C-alpha cells in the first residue's frame, strides 16, 4: 500500500502536495474502499447465504424472493433497517447505548488492515500483524459489555456478561494456538507467516506436525466461541435471553452488531487460512511469470476461497449442532482446551528440534492422515444420505 503510494509520488502524480497529506488521503481511501466495496457486500452476502444454506440443510426454502435465488435479500434488509426508527429506550443510558455498536464495529473492521489477500494486496503489512488482530478484536468485548449495560435490561446485561466472560476465556486457547505458528514462522507479520509456508498442502503449517494439526482445530473452535457463533452462542440464546445484548437495539444500530458478526466470520476464516493453510500461495506456473495481474487475481481467489470454506463450515456447524450450556462452555475451555493448547505448544517447540528430514516425513504423513480423514468423512456423509429413510429433496434451488 505504502509502496504503491510511493511509486505514485515518484511518478509525480501528486505534484506539490506534502507526502503526509497523500498518505493520509490514501489511508482514508483504502479504508473507504475496503469497507464499501469488500466488507459490506461480503457481510451482506454471507448473511443471505447463511440463511439459505441453513434452510437447505434443514429442508426448508429460506429467503428466495428478492432477486435471482434471493441474492439481493441483504440489500433489502439493509434498506429496511436504514428506514426504521432509531429507538432508544427511555430508561437506557443514551450516550453509551449509542456508542456501543460503533465500538463493536470498529473492533472487527480494524482487523481488515492486516489481512493479506495477496502478495501485494494488503493495506499494511505490520510487523506485529497477528498480535494486532488479537489486540483490536479485544475492543469488541468492551463494546458488547457497553451495549449490555446501557440497555438497562436484565437480558441484555446477562448476555453482555456472558459474552465478555466467554470471549476473554477463549482468547487463551486461541492465542496459544496462534503462538505455535509464530514459533514456527519466527515472525508476527502476516505476510511473513504466509511466506514461511508453500503452495502445496504438505508445506502448510496445518500438516507441519501432529501438534499444529490439533492446534488448528483448537484455534477454529476457540475463534467460533469468540465470535459468539453456535454452538457457543449462549450470549444470544433466544430460549433464555430473548436476544442477549442486542435485545433493545433496532434499525441500523442493530444491523451494526450483525454486520460485525458476519464480517467477523470471514476474519476468522482469513486468519485460519493465513496461519495454517498457506494463505495466498499459488503453484509457480509458467503463465504467472509474465503477467503479475493474473498472479494477483489467482492469489486473491485462492485466499478468498480458502477463507470462505471456513465460513461455510461455520454455517454448517450452526445448522447442525445444539448450543452448549454456560457451565459446559466454561469447563470445555478451562478444563480441556487450555491444557490441550499448552500441550500442543510444548509439542511444537519440541518438534522444532527434529531434523529437517524427519519433519518432511511427518508433514507427508500428516497430509496423508488429513486426506484419509476427509475421505472417511465424505464416505460417511454419503452413506447417511443414501440410507436416509425420508425422501431427500436434492433440487438445489427453488
Amino acid at each position, binding site marked *: 500500500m505504502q509502496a504503491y503510494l510511493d511509486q505514485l509520488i515518484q511518478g509525480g502524480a501528486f505534484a506539490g502536495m506534502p507526502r503526509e497529506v497523500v498518505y493520509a488521503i490514501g489511508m482514508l481511501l483504502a479504508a473507504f474502499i475496503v469497507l464499501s466495496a469488500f466488507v459490506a457486500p461480503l457481510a451482506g452476502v454471507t448473511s443471505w447465504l447463511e440463511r439459505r444454506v441453513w434452510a437447505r440443510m434443514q429442508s426448508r426454502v429460506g429467503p428466495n424472493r428478492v432477486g435471482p435465488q434471493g441474492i439481493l435479500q441483504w440489500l433489502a434488509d439493509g434498506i429496511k433497517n436504514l428506514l426504521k426508527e432509531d429507538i432508544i429506550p427511555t430508561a437506557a443510558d443514551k450516550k453509551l447505548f449509542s456508542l456501543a455498536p460503533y465500538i463493536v464495529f470498529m473492533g472487527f473492521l480494524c482487523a481488515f488492515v492486516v489481512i493479506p489477500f495477496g502478495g501485494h494486496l494488503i493495506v499494511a503489512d505490520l510487523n506485529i500483524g497477528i498480535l494486532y488482530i488479537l489486540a483490536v478484536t479485544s475492543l469488541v468485548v*468492551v463494546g458488547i459489555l457497553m451495549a449490555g449495560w446501557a440497555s438497562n435490561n436484565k437480558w441484555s446485561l446477562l448476555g453482555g456478561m456472558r459474552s465478555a466472560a466467554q470471549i476473554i476465556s477463549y482468547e487463551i486457547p486461541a492465542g496459544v494456538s496462534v503462538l505455535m505458528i509464530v514459533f514456527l514462522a519466527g515472525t508476527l507479520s502476516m505476510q511473513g507467516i504466509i511466506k514461511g509456508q508453500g503452495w502445496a498442502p504438505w508445506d502448510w503449517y496445518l500438516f507441519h506436525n501432529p501438534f499444529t494439526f490439533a492446534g488448528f482445530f483448537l484455534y477454529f473452535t476457540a475463534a467460533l466461541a469468540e465470535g459468539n457463533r453456535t454452538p457457543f452462542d449462549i450470549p444470544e440464546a433466544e430460549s433464555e435471553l430473548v436476544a442477549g445484548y442486542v435485545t433493545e437495539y433496532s434499525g441500523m444500530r442493530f444491523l451494526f452488531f450483525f454486520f460485525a458478526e458476519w464480517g467477523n466470520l470471514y476474519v476468522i476464516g482469513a486468519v485460519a487460512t493465513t496461519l495454517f493453510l498457506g494463505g495466498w500461495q499459488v503453484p509457480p506456473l509458467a503463465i504467472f511469470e509474465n503477467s503479475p495481474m493474473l498472479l494477483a487475481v489467482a492469489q486473491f481467489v485462492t485466499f478468498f476461497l480458502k477463507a470462505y470454506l471456513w465460513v461455510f463450515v461455520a454455517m454448517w456447524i450452526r445448522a447442525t449442532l445444539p448450543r452448549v450450556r454456560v457451565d459446559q462452555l466454561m469447563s470445555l475451555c478451562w478444563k480441556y482446551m487450555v491444557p490441550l493448547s499448552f500441550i500442543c505448544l510444548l509439542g511444537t517447540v519440541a518438534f522444532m528440534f527434529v531434523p529437517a528430514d524427519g519433519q518432511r516425513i511427518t508433514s507427508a504423513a500428516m497430509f496423508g492422515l488429513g486426506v484419509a480423514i476427509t475421505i472417511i468423512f465424505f464416505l460417511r456423509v454419503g452413506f447417511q444420505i443414501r440410507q436416509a429413510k425420508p425422501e431427500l429433496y436434492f433440487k438445489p434451488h427453488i
Partner: protein
Amino acid sequence: MEISTAVFYLIALITVGSAAVVTFSRNIIYSAFSLLGTFAGVAGLYIFLGADFVAGVQLLIYVGGILVLILFAVMLTHRITDVEITNRAAGRIPALVIVGVFLALLIQTVRETPWVKVKEVAYQPTTAKIGDLFLENYLLPFELASLVLLAAMIGAVVLSRKEIKE
C-alpha cells in the same frame, strides 16, 4: 502544522480527556468506560515512539484484560447506582501532598531528560529484540515478575475456591 503533529495532539487530547472523565465523573460506569480512551490513547503514543509491539500488548492486556475485569467488578458491585462519590476517607490534604510530590517528580524528570527530536522515525521490528533482552540482560526481573504473577494466580484460586466440609 504537519499532519503527524496534529494526530499526535489529537491522541494526546483523547488520552488526557478520557483520563479527566475517569477522574471527575460522578458515575463510576462512565469512569470505567472512559479508561478505554485512555488505554487506546496510550497505545497510540507508543506507536508514535516506534514501539509497535508494546502498543499491541498495551491494547491486548489493558483493553482486553484489565478493562474488562474492571467492568466486571463494577457491574457486579451491589447497588451500583447509589455510588455518589468515590473514596472520601483519605481526606483532601494528604491527597494534595501526594499529587504535589508526584507532579514535582514528573516535572523534574521532564527537565532532566535530554530530549532528542528524531528526524524520520524508522519503524523497526522490535519484537525479537525485546525477546532477546528478556532472556539475556533482564532474565532475573522477567523471572521474578512471572513468579509474582504465579503467586497472584494461586492466591486468586485459593480465595475463590469453595470450602468443602467433610
